[in-house]
């Protein structure tokens, strides 16, 4: 099953026959793998746009205090003012500068997105590796746990856990980490299932290496490609989920400039002050889209056969 990505069509030259004929430099041998991947990645315009956007966003998040004219809690005397030269994105219902809050919001979203993904990768990769490598009862137990959690619709599960953990940034990271590992575990499990019977693994066994060493030093590096691709897209998904939780008001609370929360706060003002919803909404959309493009680009670059 091929999942066709948006990047492929835009970047690949039109070919009457479908599949791309390998060009001569695709056949080059002695080049290091990483440079090869980067070269293929660079050719994908959408992925590059996504990457540049993410880097800019990271810079904006790091240097937020330097590029914003107001503090996130500063109140001015103009309420719900439309965008102007003084307030680029306007002001909100209690007079705070929306531009400053959106820029500071990048910190919240990126921190939650990245940390939640790291957490779910840690859980998903280790459980998936154990299930795939050992098979037997540990596989049965882990797979059943995954089935049970997948039987509960994701948002219901996340909202329920978020209510228990309290409404803060850290608890959102925990919630998304604890609910996001299911798909990752399945992917890693199936990679391990197919890799563990290969000859080099048998050779490692014969050399007397410990099972942990075989799992993480020998098999894992070969199962890395789907993990990298999924992990990139998962950062976007985590940001999207964080926005949904904030919107349903089980995420970070008011002075925190979470984008989803800002949209939620503006929801009664759609006809009078649409900018309150538009700017944070667009920030979520563009950020998630950038991660999707980069993830797709990585998939093509890492595995050109998929094209």
């Amino acid at each position: 099953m091929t999942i066709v990505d948006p990047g492929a069509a835009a970047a690949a030259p039109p070919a009457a026959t479908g599949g791309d004929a390998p060009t001569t430099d695709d056949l080059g041998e002695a080049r290091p793998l990483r440079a090869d991947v980067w070269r293929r990645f660079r050719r994908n315009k959408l992925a590059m746009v996504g990457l540049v956007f993410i880097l800019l966003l990271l810079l904006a998040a790091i240097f937020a205090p330097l590029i914003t004219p107001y503090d996130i809690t500063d109140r001015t005397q103009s309420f719900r003012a439309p965008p102007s030269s003084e307030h680029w994105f306007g002001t909100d219902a209690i007079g705070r500068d929306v531009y400053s809050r959106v820029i500071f919001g990048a910190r919240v979203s990126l921190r939650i997105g990245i940390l939640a993904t790291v957490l779910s990768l840690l859980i998903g990769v280790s459980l998936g590796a154990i299930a795939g490598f050992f098979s037997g009862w540990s596989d049965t137990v882990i797979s059943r746990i995954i089935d049970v959690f997948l039987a509960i619709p994701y948002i219901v599960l996340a909202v329920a856990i978020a209510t228990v953990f309290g409404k803060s940034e850290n608890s959102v990271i925990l919630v998304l980490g604890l609910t996001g590992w299911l798909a990752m575990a399945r992917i890693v499990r199936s990679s391990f299932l197919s890799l563990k019977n290969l000859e080099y693994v048998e050779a490692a066994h014969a050399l007397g290496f410990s099972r942990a060493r075989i799992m993480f030093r020998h098999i894992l590096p070969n199962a890395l490609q789907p993990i990298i691709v999924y992990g990139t897209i998962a950062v976007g998904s985590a940001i999207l989920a964080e926005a949904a939780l904030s919107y349903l008001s089980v995420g970070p609370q008011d002075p925190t400039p979470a984008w989803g929360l800002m949209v939620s706060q503006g929801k009664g003002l759609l006809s009078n002050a649409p900018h309150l919803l538009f700017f944070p909404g667009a920030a979520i959309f563009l950020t998630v889209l950038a991660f999707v493009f980069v993830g797709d680009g990585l998939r093509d670059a890492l595995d050109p056969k998929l094209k």
Partner: protein
Amino acid sequence: MTSYIIRRLLLIIPTVFLALSFLFFLFFLLPGDPASLLAGGENRVVDPGVVERINDRYGLDDPILVQFKDYWARTVQWDLGESFLNRRSVNDILGEKAVNSLRLGIWAIIIEIIVGISVGILSAIRRYSIGDRLTTILTAAASAVPVFVLGFVLQYLFAVQPNKQGWPDWARLRTSGLGPDTWTLFFIPTGEQWRYLILPAVTLACVSTALAARMTRGSMLEVLRADYMRTAKAKGLSERSVVVKHGLRNAMLPVVTLIGIDFGTVIGAAILTETTFSWPGLGSEIANAVSARDLPVLLGLTLAVVIAYALINLVVDVSYAFFDPRIRLGKGGQS
């Protein structure tokens, strides 16, 4: 085949049991005391006598394992309890809200199937055309836009602006609530009703439609390259019958899977869509129940959703056999 279906139906039981039990215990960890909530709100001073009577009535003071046993004893008889908030029977709430969600969901799935599959086929046939590139970009965009943001954008374009610009009345769509609740044949909106239905239905359908289009395109591209497609063309069949008879049927398998798996996404999107459009369905009721800590409502509605989800996955697996007779259910290879 029959034994396969029966085995799968039996497997649903432990899954549903474990999932619901997990939620049950999770909600006992919730901060806040349901009895004082029942007596009139978290922040009000409540007569301790009232709290005691409520605890008595709902068994909230019993040890958690006793409550757990009582919960399942009731639930297996399909008695879902009564709401902590307004004492309505959860069975009644479920019946009322499920109907509304079902109507919205049916339209979302109709849009997903018609628009998603035809866009996917067209862009696979005309690969690398402008339309195809537009499709690939739009489908990526649809997977990145938060459901509620899309909802607000549509509300702004089709309800707020028409009102400001003074468009004719029929062109102003409604953004909030169920509307007059007039339906033909259960799900076809009648009279004014369609103006209330159309925006939430499109919003709900958007993410799934994009996924379906993407999946159809990919699957179709693979099928179009197959040898039997060349054979079909070589024996002089028209382009249309090659694509429809030989291509489509083979390309549909992954798409059917997707539509089934995607049901979970639809439910998640439904919570956001229904909240955004104040559509009185299961999704907005679940969201309310969570924020009000209305445990019986939450568990009851989730139970219904989890069972529906499991049954739909079963239907999807069985429909494989219909789309691909090579698949024999229940014999070998099925994990």
